[in-house]
């Protein structure tokens, strides 16, 4: 297969937004190329969908109908005629449309007339004491193992945090016969008064709401130990996870476990959009940065758009709608259709986005990020996993006059490790802001350096530009 060095529209990421955008763009006659790190389409939400369908159909029952929905999206994308290069790691995307991409250990530059970034979401890092121990993972990480490899925990599991994903993964574990030692929810029992106020809007996504309730009753009838209002969770173990301690009902408890799964919602994966230096804005309610985008997903850079959860968490269905709308807009910009035709083609997706927005309003209110999990309270807590930088080291740097995340990085090495601040960035800003009595947007964001993925010097040296 000859790898492409030019295209009209380059889509980075093969999840719902990327697949839907590519399908729409191809239908409009745009020369489209999808670059994705994974070996098969689906993104993280529908990870491994084709393999599960073909070889592990029994797992569909465990994974549930939201996962299965990916089959249609994936098949449509495969049939769309869009060029697709799986196993492609994008390490650079520039404002002028140039993209640095590595495939099978060789890098090349390709030039796109337009770039659509659809890199999706990541779990918000949960810097609890003990979170660096082997055997502590994101709840989404365990889901990835289930989807991609058909693997489930064979040791007692504790799930800690907040967010709808916790109910889903616990339900999936129940179906798969996993032993759940405890689900430790840091949020108080759902603010139903709040939820009901938002119901009229959210009812337009009634099926989704019913699914959430179904997960809960599934967990209740399975007798899963669900504790609400848990505080001060600590993960313990010598060299590997052995137990979790937490306060519940005013009493300290300890539960022996072999695996701990953390979750405090998901946030946009902004590494690539930040690297392009397009404008980003702070979402105070969900406590994350997202690229500034218009209703067509266009950013402050003329050639670059960001669609899907990478532009703000709205879920898989909204991501697909945004992807299609971004493709329509790309078609206008690339001279394939005029704006009137574009506007005539978006009514279904606009309606879907409105529905998803109303649902999100309610979910966001029900599952606000747990403050206690945003920044460690103990001074010894590790914030930067790569460089083992603790809260007290960060606070020390703040006391010495570092008030911005990049200054703190220079003084402490926090964010200088291989993950390039993906795992500590959100926390560092919280720690500085807490210390200085600011909102977490004031200390800023790490300046992302290219390449955003590591490539060898040899690969860089052999690069044909």
């Amino acid at each position, binding site marked *: 297969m000859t790898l492409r060095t030019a295209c009209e529209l380059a889509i980075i990421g093969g999840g719902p937004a990327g697949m839907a955008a590519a399908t729409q763009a191809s239908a409009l006659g745009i020369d489209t190329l999808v670059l994705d790190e994974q070996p098969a389409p689906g993104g993280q939400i529908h990870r491994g969908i084709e393999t599960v369908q073909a070889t592990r159909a029994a797992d569909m029952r465990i994974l549930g109908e939201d996962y299965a929905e990916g089959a249609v999206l994936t098949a449509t994308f495969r049939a769309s005629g869009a060029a697709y290069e799986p*196993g492609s790691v994008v390490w650079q995307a520039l404002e002028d449309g140039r993209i640095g991409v590595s495939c099978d250990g060789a890098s090349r530059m390709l030039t796109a007339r337009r770039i659509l970034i659809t890199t999706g979401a990541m779990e918000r890092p949960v810097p609890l004491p003990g979170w660096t121990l082997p055997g502590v993972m994101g709840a*989404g990480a365990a889901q990835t193992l289930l989807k991609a490899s058909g693997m489930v*925990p064979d040791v007692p599991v504790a799930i800690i945090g907040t967010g709808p994903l916790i109910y889903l993964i616990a339900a999936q574990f129940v179906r798969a016969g996993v032993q759940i030692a405890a689900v430790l929810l840091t949020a108080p029992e759902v603010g139903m008064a709040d939820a009901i106020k938002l119901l009229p809007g959210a009812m337009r996504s009634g099926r989704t709401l019913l699914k959430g309730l179904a997960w809960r009753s599934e967990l209740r009838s399975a007798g899963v130990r669900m504790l609400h209002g848990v505080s001060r969770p600590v993960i313990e173990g010598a060299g590997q996870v052995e137990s979790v301690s937490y306060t519940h009902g005013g009493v300290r408890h300890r539960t022996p476990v072999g695996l701990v799964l953390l979750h405090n919602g998901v946030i946009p994966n902004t590494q690539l959009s930040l690297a392009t230096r397009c404008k980003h804005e702070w979402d105070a309610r969900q406590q994350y940065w997202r690229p500034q985008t218009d209703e067509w997903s266009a950013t402050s850079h003329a050639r670059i758009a960001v669609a899907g959860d990478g532009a703000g968490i709205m879920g898989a269905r909204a991501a697909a709608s945004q992807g299609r709308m971004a493709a329509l807009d790309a078609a206008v910009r690339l001279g394939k259709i005029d704006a009137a035709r574009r506007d005539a083609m978006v009514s279904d997706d606009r309606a879907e986005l409105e529905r998803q927005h109303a649902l999100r309003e309610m979910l966001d209110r029900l599952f606000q990020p747990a403050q206690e999990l945003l920044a460690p309270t103990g001074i010894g807590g590790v914030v930067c996993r790569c460089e083992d930088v603790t809260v007290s080291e960060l606070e020390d740097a703040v006391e010495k006059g570092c008030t911005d995340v990049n200054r703190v990085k220079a003084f402490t090495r926090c964010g200088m490790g291989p993950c390039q601040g993906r795992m500590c960035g959100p926390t560092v800003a919280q720690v500085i802001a807490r210390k200085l009595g600011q909102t977490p947007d004031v200390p800023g964001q790490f300046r992302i350096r290219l390449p955003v993925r590591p490539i060898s010097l040899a690969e860089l040296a052999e690069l044909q530009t």
Partner: protein
Amino acid sequence: MFRRLHEPSATVTVYLDDAPLRVAAGDTVAAALLGVGVAVFRAAPRHGSPRGPHCMIGNCYECLVEIDGMPYRQACLTTVADGMRIRRPIEREAPP
């Protein structure tokens, strides 16, 4: 730490620190090692503390191992291949 819901339909042999392991074809290196009970993938450079996969989607860089002679490869983003040689950087001393 993890078990498989199904017997893999195809397997390959990889070498972990020179010991042969039969793992499921198509798995990532991270999933393959977790599936045979390997929890510790590397030692963090500052204090040498043990680390293993945390995010499984390429963000945390905790699963960095040496693969076919190339250090710092992300095990969660690399698919296993027959004959692949994997080494865990767990012997490294913490810097002075």
